[in-house]
């Protein structure tokens, strides 16, 4: 399983990571190596069973009741940029 440069760039775009050219080359080789190893292993077995849900925990809900939470100050304390009680980012819509 050899990944092309285009495939690696596509994955990086999906993952929202701006890789350098050197990294694209490196990851292309490493990912190809790793995935080839897995291909080899996976093709040896036919597996068509339901996925596992550990401890059979499904549909775990909490009561629909509001509880005390954090202050705006606490939540903004780690913000890279904040203004007027809001997180500040570059425009989302052009």
């Amino acid at each position, binding site marked *: 399983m050899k990944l092309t440069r285009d495939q690696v760039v596509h994955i990086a775009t999906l993952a*929202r990571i701006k890789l350098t050219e050197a990294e694209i080359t490196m990851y292309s080789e490493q990912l190809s*190596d790793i995935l080839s190893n897995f291909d080899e292993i996976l093709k040896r077995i036919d597996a068509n069973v339901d996925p*596992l849900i550990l401890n059979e925990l499904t549909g775990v809900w909490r009561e629909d009741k509001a509880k005390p939470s954090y202050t705006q100050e606490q939540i903004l304390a780690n913000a890279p940029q904040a203004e007027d009680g809001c997180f500040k*980012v570059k425009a989302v819509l052009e």
Partner: protein
Amino acid sequence: MLKMGQISSVELTKDVLKHIDNTDGKLHSYVTVTKGIALDQAHAADKRIKAGKATPLTGIPAAIKDNMCTMGIKTTCSSRMLENFVPPYDATVVKKLNESGMVLLGKTNLDEFAMGSSTENSAFGITKNPWDYERVPGGSSGGSAVAVAADQALYALGSDTGGSIRQPAGFCSVVGLKPTYGRVSRYGLVAFGSSLDQIGPLTRDVTDTALVLNAIAGYDSCDSTSVDKPVPDYTKALTGNIKGLRIGIPKEYFVDAMQSDVKTVIEEAINKLKGLGATVEWDMSLSLTDYALATYYLIAPAEASANLARYDGTKYGHRTTDGDSMWDIMEKTREDGFGAEVKRRIMIGTYALSAGYYDAYYKKAQSLRRLIWEEFNQAFSKYDALVTPTSPTVPFKLGEKANDPMQMYLSDVCVLPINIAGIPGLSVPSGFVDGLPVGLQILGKPFDEETILRIGHAYEQESDWHTKKPALK
């Protein structure tokens, strides 16, 4: 555990802090040392002990892996992405330990975002193995393992997604426990692989592990994967008697790449268990063991790619400011903030989940997971516990596997399947090869930590590996 009558928590804490000062320049177990907080807590603990309100952990200096949130104290996950992140809340395990009167010495080093097997992937420096400074301590909980091995903490917490408590425990000659999935709350543990992660103790001996587990285990409504089962007193399981316990030794864990000296140490340890009265059956088979590596390295990165999508430079963490648009800044933030191994795993995970590949990779891995789990269940209908080596080799040299990801991943073959199945696993010191530690791994049924602790403790009483300490020259 120390008898608190003979020494105060303040004296003990001061001693350990001084020792950290003297040794951490070389070892680098700690990312952050919380001296002021530790001394305040020690004072409070001494008052509490005098008032007769102590728990077994009151006043005992401990370290916490730096991927668990500690309110008001930097929590970095050893990543530039969270270099200055100060959580506004405590992880549930931290809250519980605080309630029991913990003295927090600091936050320990790890592979970035818990991704690695050597602690070489930390953005803030390498942690060294105290038994040989040129070798890795294992990972990702390397800092915690070394802190305990080198007496820089009396116990520590680590996290284990694919062996990250047990493997470094084995490499550093300390006890490490990964509890059953759902036994300990993950609230406040920075998520890596949410269906695999568990928090657990690293300690000098099995009794201490039982004491820490007593304090941290239990249902938590803040963790929807936490199981509402009562927590027994795990110390009561340490009877010293393992007569009649049926132990299986799965042959697939004695891989080709296993060092023959390590094999000898493990075989001696298993024979000791037989000598203690357990029924040992060699060469039983867990035929799906070979598939665990691929299963793990598809599921874990897939879950990681989803869990790490939150690091976008918006609400907290690193932001690269030099960029023209929202996407440009986000992509540069993640490029700058994450290290190579983290990016590698995000890429593998993204690929495995992407359109056209989801069925071949992720869905298949999930099916394999059920088959592996069923195989363990079958084994546990015949055996009370399974025993294996923790690692096929002694700790490897720093840099030895850093450039070959596949080699690094292969070093975890003995520990990975346990997270896939969600069962508990304990690593105990079982000897040395050329002065380098070898760990013995004991596996149990879900929520049967009592049996594996009992076996580990019984073995410990008959050997003295856990009393050996590194020279720290």
